[in-house]
C-alpha cells in the first residue's frame, strides 16, 4: 500500500501537478494558497517540498534564473511513487467518507 499523505502534503503535491511545467517554489506556493484558499507561509511549503523529496515522492532540478530574480529556480515534479501515493490518498479519503452524508449535520 502506498504512503497515506496528510492534507497539506496533498495540497503541495496537487499544486505541483496543477502548475505542471512551471512547478518551481514561488509558483507552487501560490498554487497551494489557491488550492487551500488561504495565506500559507513559505517555510511550510518549502519544508513539505523537502520532506516529500526525501521520501521519494518528488524529484527536483535546478534551472537558470531570470533577469528579475537573478538566481536559479528549483523545479519539482512528481515521481511514480508520488503519483501512486496521491492516488492512494484520494481513494482512502473517499472510502472513509462512504456511507456518511456530506455535509454532516449536528443532531441532538
Amino acid at each position, binding site marked *: 500500500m502506498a504512503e497515506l499523505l496528510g492534507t497539506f502534503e496533498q495540497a503541495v503535491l496537487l499544486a505541483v501537478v496543477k502548475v505542471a511545467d512551471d512547478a518551481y*517554489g514561488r509558483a507552487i506556493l*501560490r498554487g497551494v494558497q489557491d488550492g487551500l484558499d488561504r495565506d500559507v*507561509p*513559505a*517555510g511550510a511549503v*518549502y*519544508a513539505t517540498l523537502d520532506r516529500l523529496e*526525501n521520501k521519494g515522492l518528488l524529484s527536483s532540478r535546478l534551472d537558470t534564473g531570470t533577469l*528579475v*530574480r537573478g538566481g536559479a529556480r528549483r523545479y519539482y515534479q512528481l515521481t511514480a511513487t508520488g503519483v501512486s501515493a496521491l492516488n492512494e490518498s484520494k481513494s482512502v479519503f473517499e472510502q472513509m467518507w462512504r456511507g456518511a452524508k456530506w455535509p454532516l449535520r449536528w443532531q441532538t
Partner: protein
Amino acid sequence: MNPQTPPSWLERLLLWLLTSRDRETISGDLLEEYREEQLPRFGRARANYWYARQLISLPSYAFGEDHS
C-alpha cells in the same frame, strides 16, 4: 537603498538562515514574489511585512530535518 528590494538587513538575515543548497533558489523565489506581486499590489510597507513573515516561517524549515 534599492526600492525594488526588501530592506537589506532582512535579506541578509534570510541568506543566513538558508543552507547553501537553498540560498539562491528560495531567496530568488521570495524576491520574485516581492517585486512582481507584493510591492506593486500592496506598496512597500506591506511588501516588507510580507517578506518578514516569510522569513519568520523559514526557521521551521532551516532548523528542521537535515536538508543539506
